[in-house]
């Protein structure tokens, strides 16, 4: 029977299956990662966002929730221009974090 609408998919975060290793790694080696308050200033100023929809805010939230599968593909669009670093009100070293993540993927730890 169709009522013309669906029930949304369950959006709870399952910490038993999700992988928080990246979040832990980043907080250890680039501690400014923990300062992020998800204000979205980085995404608002991002030039890659304009073209590919790259959202640093979303990516950081996903890392904190342990959902890291698609991150590399999305981060690949970053041009490292550094506007997000200047825009960030919390002093998160966003470019450092992006390089750290790509360094990890090079060593295939993610």
């Amino acid at each position, binding site marked *: 029977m169709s009522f013309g609408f669906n029930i949304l998919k369950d959006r709870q975060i399952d910490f038993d299956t999700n992988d928080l290793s990246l979040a832990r790694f980043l907080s250890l080696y680039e501690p400014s990662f923990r300062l992020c308050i998800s204000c979205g200033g980085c995404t608002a100023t991002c*030039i890659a966002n304009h073209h590919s929809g790259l959202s640093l805010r979303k990516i950081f939230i996903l890392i904190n929730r342990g959902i890291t599968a698609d991150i590399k593909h999305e981060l690949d669009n970053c041009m490292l221009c*550094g506007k997000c670093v*200047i825009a960030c009100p919390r*002093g998160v070293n966003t470019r450092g974090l992006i*390089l750290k993540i790509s*360094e990890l993927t090079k060593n295939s730890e993610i």
Partner: protein
Amino acid sequence: MTFHPFVLPFIAGLSFIIIYFFYKTYHWISGLSDSDKKKLRNSIFTQKTYYAAKEVFLESLLHRKIFRINPLLGYMHASLAFGWFLLIVIGNLESRLYHPSDFNPPYYPIFLGFFDTDSHHTYWYAPIFKFIMNLLLIIVLSGVLLALLKRLYAGLFKMKKTTHLKMADKIPLYSLWLIFPARLMAESVAAAIYQNGGFLTTSIGKLLSTSLATESFMLTFYWLYSIALGIFFCSLPWSRYMHIPSEVVLIFFRNYGIHNTENNKELQEVELLSCSRCGICIDTCQIMTSAKVNSIQAVYFLKSLREKDYDRNKAFNCLMCGRCEKICPVGISINMHRQQSRNHISNDKGFLETAWHLTQKKKAKIAYFSGCMTRLTPSVIVAMKKIFSAANENWIFLDENNGICCGRPTKLAGLTKKASELAEANKSMIHESGADLLISSCPICVKTFTEDYHLNLPVFHHSVYLNNLIKAKKINVQKIPIQAIYHDPCELGRGLHIYDEPRQLLSSLLNLKTIHYSAENALCCGNSVAGFHLSSQEKDMITKDALIKMNTKDCDIIATACPMCKKSFVKFEQTKVKDLAEILEMAITK
């Protein structure tokens, strides 16, 4: 007597280093690219060789550049290098004058006090030589003493930090320190026995009681002297003292126009070996003086690179401001090494998919590319728009709505493939616009446009363009009665050597005050796009320190030509920070 077994360590060391040096030089020359080899062949019998030889004399021996930076440090280097050189030359001359016909083995002048026991009685000029040689020995010894003091108290040399040492450096360093005191003692005892000393060696010889002035005592010191020389020569290739021969090769290569470019492995090695680790780059680095990070400076970076250790932090934790490169007395292309190191470390496959689609339908004479950073300082864009319309220019805004990065930050991250993909996209957009002139407000973009894009139209930073506008009287301005200081952005100044145009422009608009930290000595604002590892706190420390050093209190305006510098300074500065375009906008008269 012309031989004694104690000369053997010296002979062994000397032969080893000579063979090693010629092998290395052959290796370097044969590894050069064909165009570089051609340059070498074409210029070897020209004036360039003379200039190179002159530079070797001034820099490798006299250390003129170090003298200019720090006179005491310069004296230390010059007394050791030039003093030792003169000791060798005059010692050779002296020995040849005494024995003009004899076969003169290379060790003979070095140990003249031992072998030559009677000539000084027969030749009238012998005392003069003894005096000169003793004087030179004192000068060299004073250099050794200063080197020792520098190890203990770097502050004596007004240096905040001197370099750390490793074992391979300590062996030749200690043997170098030992060479001259051993020589002094050996010659003094010889002077007491043979009466052949100068003013210094005779007096020290007299001080030693007759019981000490024996042949066995003398031989002990000559053995020590010879062994110290032998160890020094043998450990040379693995220590920083390899800079002595390498720097000579580097100076000749530089004068022949052979430089360290992106894939020049040989030049890279010559430059790495030429670093004498004088430590001058440490005190000039703002990451050291302001952010107190003392592990990534050029001297440490080049050292790990020489050991084939591509340390990620040393390569990426650098603002590439170029201050160390400008002050380096050897002239090593430090930024190029950092770039090469970043390229080596980074894993670059290019963009997985290029999501941007740039089209440029409109045509115009002037194409204006604001750059990412300028879009964070919209007042600059507003000012540029007003200036364009005031000058009645036919222009278009290339990246107003959907521009992409110029590619320099990705290049600086070592992602050269990504950078060239971005460059290609921008290039086609620039060419589609049909412009005859490309202007950007961001020195970072201008740097990459001029160096990497190979465009067929001139590229101007807006400071140059605005200066030309005023010169051509295309725009009417009135001088504003305010005081300003000008801050040279790294990429515009040291990066592109544009120092005069912004100053000319400012002088025609207001009263420009000169400051100590300007032109090649300008400070970095701390937010350079090349710095990937510094935390925001460390960057802030650099910015604040730079503002204090620039002494911004007595001026009404801080003028700069880079949106990034402006953005960094306004964070902490009470005085207004204005871009050149904004100042010109203020001065326009209708």
